[in-house]
Structure formats: C-alpha cells, structure tokens
C-alpha cells in the first residue's frame, strides 16, 4: 500500500500475511459467497441494499485477512512508537487511566467553584471549565450584547477576581485545568498566569489547556471577534509564550468536536482538524521556533460519535496521519512531537429530548469507543443535554459510566485491543487515505485559512448536515425514541438546572465595583500599550495582556481595545 508522505515506502516493509495465504483466503471467500452466502440471501435478503459507515465508507458484511493484506506491519506497529496508530504511550491505561474530565460552568466563579469541588469529591481527576456566551465572545457582563446570557451557559469571567473565585481552594499545581475558551482564550490564560504568580505557583508546574483553536470557530463553532489573520497571530503568541514559560501547559486543544457537532462527518472532523493544525504549526515555525520546542504540547479534542467501529478507526487514523505529517512536513525529531494526545467528548448531537434515559446508553457506547480508541481524557455527556446545563445527578451518572468502564470491565488492561481486527484496520486505512485526499485539496486552496475564506469547510459541513437531517426525517436513519420506538409514556422527569435570576445583576454590580476601585489611569496606559504591541505583528501579546489583567482591566476592555486595531469579523454564511 502506498502511503503518501511516508518514508516508510522506501524502507523494507513487512507484509502481515503471506501472498499465498491471501490467495487461499480469496478463494475461500469466493466459494463461501457462491455457496453459503448465496443460499442464505435467497431465503433472508439483507435489510439494506448497501451499508456505509457514518462518513460514507462502504462497509462489507465480513472482513478477512485479505482486506489487510497490503497493510505493512509498520503502519500498525506498537503503542508509544511511530506512527502511534495504537496509542501515544507504551502502557496506555495500565500506566495511567484516561482523565475523567467532566465540564462544569454556570453562574459566577464562586458558583462553579462549588460544582468543581463536588466533581472532585465524586472522583473526577481533572477539571474542565465552560464559560458563558459573553465570556466566550469577549464581552463584559454589563455589555448590552450580554443581556440575558450572563452565567447562563457557563461561568462568567470579567476580571481576574472572578477567576480567583473560580479556583478558590483548588491547588492549581496539583490538578490540571482545561478551559473551553477560544477567541478570548489568551486573556483567560493571562488571568490564569497572573493568578498563579500571585499565589506563588511555579508556572512550569501548571498543567492544563486552553482550547484556543480559532480556526475551527470560523468553520464550525462560530465564536469569533477579530478577522482570521489577527486571530491566528494571537494563537501563535500563546503557543510561543507557553513553550517558553509553562512547560506542562497545552496552549491549544485543536478541535474536531465542533466540526462534528456543526454537522461534519467523522472524516471531515479529523481531516479539517489536521489541516487547521498544519496552519497553526506553520505560523509558529515561521517566527523561528523549532517544531520540537512546542509540538509536544499540542493537544487535540475529538468527538466520539455513533458509528462505534468507525470512531475507533478514526482515532487510530488521525494519530497515524498526524505522526507522519509532523515528521515529513515539519521535520519533527522528538517522538513527543509526533504523538497525538487527545480529549474526547461523547456526541451531544446524538442525544434526544424524548426518552432522555436512552441518552445514558448512547453516552456509554460512545465512551466505550473513545476508550477503545485510546483517548487520554474523556467527558461523558449528561442525559439531560438536550434540555439544559447538566444537573448534578446527570453528571454523576456520566462520571460513573466512565468509572465502571475503567474499573469493572478489564478493557483498559490491553492497549489498542482492536488492533489487528481485519475490519478496524481496513477502516483505519480507508480513513487515512481519505484524510490525505482532503489535506491535499485544502493545500490547493492555500491551506486551512484559504479553505475557510473560500467557504470550503463550511460548505462540506452544511451539505453533510443537510443530508443527515433529511435522512433522519425520512427514517433512513433511525433515532430511537424519535422516529422509531416512539411511546406515549410519561418521560423520566428531568430536573433542569435552575439559573439564579439574580446572578446576572450580582455579576454586573461586582464588575462596577472593581472598575471603580482600581487605578483607571494605569489601566488606560496599559491598554494603549496593548494596542501598540498589537500593531507590531512580530511582538508577543501575552506579557502586556498579563499586565493588563493584573491592573484589573476587564476582558471586554481588552477585547475592545484590540477591535480598534484588528477590526471585526463578519461571516459569509454557506448553506
């Protein structure tokens, strides 16, 4: 098999199965098809005329060694060794279980702090924080655009004091913290660093991540402030800053999850993510950083969707392609620069409002494929995802789901247990091939940025979403409880999370107080300095941003100061 980008071609590759054995099997398959199969099909025809995976790959009724005959052993290999198909570490879960990282966030920093502590008491091993829409979009709680949304879908952060309340009583040196934040990520990172410095933490001991993947925003999640290029510069600055000052911190969590949730196929998810990765890496190396100095701290985030085996194949394929890309394209030398580590979230898009208890089952199966796919960290969705911010009950069940898989099933005792499955290896190959095709096509458009500017990613996603919606509507795609097995029974009553109606006003009042009590001249001075720094394309924005948050400049003030320099982004929607 020819693998593009792979110098494995020139080496002596090891066939898995001898030519003669393959012939033998081919004959046997042909014989089986004319006899047992033909006979059976006559009595019991298959239910569908064709079978395809979630991404559309044709799927056979049964797989044999014939299907992997051309796959060199080197492509499969061993966990912890290039091309890392089977996992980034040699011992995988025997060494350390995946991090159970349930996201939390609502109301004020203090309110979320309670939920974080609750989850840690229940056995969660890493923290993950989600923020309200205004914070995600860079608006202060008192901005007119924030009205009705403060503290609703996540926690509100305006000034560093909010972050202090968020992490009150939590030792940041001992637990890793993931922050789901994008266009305003660099500001939250600045607050995190400023807070750590205030508390006397060693920056090189802090572990965690900011999502900070702005490219997938333009294509999928649609959170943005500035146009594409200035935003890429900000991401570059955070990666460089972290590489130099925070050894254990992942400055980006390059994401496919949102591409999937926006309607993309599993193939789109991983291919577009890798294209985006390429763009980020190019940006950072172009300012003179050596790829091995920052690539080990690139981390990723994927969904675990409904097609059980395709997801496993997908995780293996994306690891393999990433390894090859980092080695061939960017000349990475350290294995850590080539081994992909990712967080997974089960697919919210598959969860339904009717019969919500079914969602527990969906989430369990998706969690299972994530584990079989070798994820490093996992968030399992709450059963009430279709309604609301998850309740404590829903989050507890979701967490128990992971704990049961981890501790009762023996699954984690073996790395990449599905390696060698004729089906899974074959599907992994199909996925890899298709990823390279998309990467090549994207390259022709000028890379991820060009592809996004031309609407290519958006169009693929919109088309796939439309087709899926139509096939669900015409019952070609079953959704249990929605278009099949519908029942009139009273659904399990889901307790919706109640947002305290006073929360928004409290936040606004607090912000007003902070602004009144700080040195406003100092803030103004620093914001001007920030603008000057921004105008110099080669300067790094992090240090001056850290200064700004220490002086109690608010997120909105920082974002607005730079709007004057960078402008704002308006989407050209693609249907």
């Amino acid at each position, binding site marked *: 098999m020819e693998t593009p980008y792979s110098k494995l071609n020139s080496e002596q590759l090891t066939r898995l199965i001898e030519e003669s054995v393959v012939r033998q099997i081919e004959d046997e398959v042909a014989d089986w098809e004319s006899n047992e199969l033909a006979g059976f099909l006559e009595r019991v025809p298959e239910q569908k005329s064709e079978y395809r995976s979630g991404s559309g790959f044709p799927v056979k009724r049964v797989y044999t060694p014939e299907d992997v005959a051309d796959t060199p052993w080197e492509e499969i290999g061993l966990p912890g060794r290039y091309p890392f198909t089977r996992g980034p570490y040699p011992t995988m879960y025997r060494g350390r279980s995946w991090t159970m990282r349930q996201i939390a966030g609502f109301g004020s920093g203090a309110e979320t702090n309670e939920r974080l502590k609750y989850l840690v008491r229940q056995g969660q091993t890493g923290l993950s924080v989600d923020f309200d829409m205004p914070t995600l979009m860079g608006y202060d709680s008192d901005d007119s655009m924030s009205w009705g949304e403060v503290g609703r879908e996540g926690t509100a952060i305006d000034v560093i004091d909010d972050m202090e309340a968020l992490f009150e009583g939590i030792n940041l040196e001992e637990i890793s913290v993931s922050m789901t934040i994008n266009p305003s990520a660099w500001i939250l990172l600045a607050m995190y660093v400023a807070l750590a410095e205030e508390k006397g933490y060693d920056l090189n001991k802090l572990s965690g991540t900011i999502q900070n993947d702005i490219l997938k925003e333009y294509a999928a999640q649609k959170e943005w402030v500035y146009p594409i290029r200035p935003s890429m510069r900000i991401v570059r600055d955070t990666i460089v800053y972290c590489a130099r000052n925070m050894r254990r911190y992942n400055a980006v969590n390059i994401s496919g999850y949102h591409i999937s949730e926006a309607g993309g196929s599993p193939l789109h998810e991983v291919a577009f993510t890798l294209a985006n990765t390429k763009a980020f890496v190019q940006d950072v190396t172009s300012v003179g950083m050596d790829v091995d100095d920052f690539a080990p701290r690139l981390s990723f985030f994927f969904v675990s969707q409904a097609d059980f085996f395709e997801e496993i194949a997908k995780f293996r394929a994306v690891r393999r392609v990433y390894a090859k890309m980092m080695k061939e394209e960017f000349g990475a030398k350290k294995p850590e620069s080539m081994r992909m580590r990712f967080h997974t979230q089960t697919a919210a898009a598959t969860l339904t409002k009717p019969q919500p208890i079914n969602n527990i089952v969906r989430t369990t199966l998706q969690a299972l494929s994530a584990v079989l796919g070798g994820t490093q960290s996992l968030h399992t969705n709450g059963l009430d995802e279709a309604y609301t911010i998850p309740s404590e009950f829903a989050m507890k069940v979701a967490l128990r789901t992971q704990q049961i898989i981890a501790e009762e099933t023996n699954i984690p005792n073996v790395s990449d247990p599905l390696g060698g499955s004729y089906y899974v290896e074959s599907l992994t190959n199909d996925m890899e091939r298709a990823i390279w095709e998309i990467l090549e096509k994207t390259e022709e458009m000028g890379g991820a940025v060009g592809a996004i500017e031309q609407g290519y990613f958006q169009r693929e996603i919109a088309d796939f979403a439309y087709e899926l919606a139509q096939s669900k509507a015409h019952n070609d795609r079953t959704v249990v409880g929605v278009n099949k097995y519908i029942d009139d029974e009273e659904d399990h009553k889901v307790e919706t999370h109640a947002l305290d109606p006073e929360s928004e006003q409290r936040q606004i009042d607090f912000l007003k107080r902070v602004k009144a009590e700080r040195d406003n001249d100092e803030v103004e001075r620093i914001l001007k300095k920030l603008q000057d720094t921004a105008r110099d394309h080669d300067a790094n924005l992090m240090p001056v941003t850290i200064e700004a948050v220490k002086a109690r400049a608010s997120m909105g003030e920082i974002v607005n100061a730079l709007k004057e320099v*960078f402008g704002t982004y308006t989407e*050209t929607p693609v249907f």
Partner: protein
Amino acid sequence: MARVTDSAQSLTERVRAGHVPSIARMISHVESGANNVAEQVAELYKAGGHARIIGITGAPGAGKSTLVSSLVRELRARDNTVGIIAIDPSSPFSGGSILGDRIRMSDLYHDPGVFIRSMATRGALGGLARATIDAVTVLDAAGKDIVLVETVGVGQDEVDIVRACHTTVVVSAPGMGDDVQAIKAGILEIADVHAVNKADRPEANKTIGELKTMLKDSGHVLTDGWKIPVLATVAEHGQGVEHGQGVDELADVMERHYEHLVSSGEIERRERNMAAHRLKTIIQGVALDRVEDPSVGPDFDAAVEDVRLRKRAPFTVALDLLENSV
C-alpha cells in the same frame, strides 16, 4: 400613541412620508402585483425622479455587499439617505431563495436613514425584474437621496443593470481564480466606474493594471467625456480604518459622475434609455401575462400543442396569440 398605520393617510402617502413599514409593504405590493398597484406606482413615479440611482454589479465573491456596506456608511457621513435593494437568485427548481446580503450590512440596521430590502429574482426573464425597477421607484418616492441596486452578478442582470441606473459600478477582486481576461466583455463596457476590491491582496496591482489595459485596448477609457476610473478599495472593516480604504474616493467619483451626466446633458440620454427599457420590460411582462392568461384570448396550452405537433408554425402562433390576447 396613535399608530401611523391607523391614520387616514393612504399607503402611498405614507410611503412618501418615509414611513418604513409602509415602504416595505409597498415593495411587497409591486412584487406581487396586488390590487391597485399600477395606480399606486403611477402616483409614486410622478412623485419621484430625485434620487441618484446607482447599480453595483460584479461576480460573486468580489465582496459587493461588504463594499456596499462601507460605501453606505460613507454616504451617510455625507448626509445622504440611502435605499438599498440587494438581489439574490431564486432557485430555478423550487422558486425559493436564500437572501443573505443583509448580513454584511448589519451595522447599518440601527440607522433610520438606511432602508435595506432583499429581493429574489423570481424567475425574471433574464435581466432585472420589473419589480426591482418598481421598488427603485418606491424608494425614490420615499425620499431617498440615493438608491443602490446590488445585483446577483451572474448572467444577464449584470449588463441589464446599466439600463436602470444613472451610474454603474463594476466590482471585481484580485485572485478570484479567474484572470481579468475572463471578465466578460459586456461587463467591461457597462461600467462607469470600476472598483477593484480586496485591494490589500498582493495581486491587486496586477488586476488594476490589467483592467486599465483592457479598457484602453477596447477603446473604453472615455465615454461621452467621462474617463472611466479604476479604483482600489478595501471594504473589510478594521485595520483601523473607519470606512474602508478607497471608499471615500468611490463616493467622490459617484458624485462627480452624476455631476458630469447633468452638466454634459448625458443624463437625458441615460434617462431616456431607462424609460425605454422600463416600458419594454413592462410590455414584455404584461404581454406574456395576457397571452398566458386562460381567460383572455386563445388557449396558450393548446397553442403550445399546435406548435409541438407541427400543426402550425411558431411565429404564426405567436402573432395570433398576441393579436388576440393583448
């Protein structure tokens, strides 16, 4: 507070007073051809004739809507009130349409001096729909100083726009995959002004140069004493520039073109063309409506069958239908 719509004023009076919901409703009427719309349009037509009508055309992807948005902000800064008609194609299969030009003008929404209306082509027989031209009349009568018509940018309407406007601006952008050579000859000829948008792109100068060369080669540098300018614009927000680079120049050029039309007397010729084109469009539309109307004259479907079965020749049938329906 008494609702304006409850007052005794007629719809056309409210349009002329600038009442937004009434303007909107009137445009819907001209699209649907409702009730006494002919009389209403007649009244508005006589009340109008003051607005400068500007056509903005160019291939999709050149950034027309963003440029229009920037341009309108500039025009507003010069105290002009503006009406915008943004045209998008109707699906030939379903007849439906997604009208998305408004999105790029969202920062104009709060400005009462700007009226934005999206119109679908609705199967217009190639070229600008009659309803579009009538909508221009409505906005003119409503007192707008300037009416901008932004076309789809493909097909006949690109060329047609010139017959409905005082000034036609053709927008192009560098590096759109097509060489300037690919710009259809028709486009080149109709422009009173060329705007090369996204001029901050590296290939921009090349595009501008090529356009100027093409104009010279085809002898279109000067028409009726007007030297056709090729402007460089950067319509996208930001980079610290309020109205976008080159946009104030575009607004200047538009003003100068209109002054030129007036001072050279060229405006009469243009407006004569506009009137003639309008009449022809209406005649075409009305004639076809009447011919297809089953209650008037010979049956259209039967006539079609005659032609298909070669019982009668097409030309004969057409003349017969016209003579007996219209």
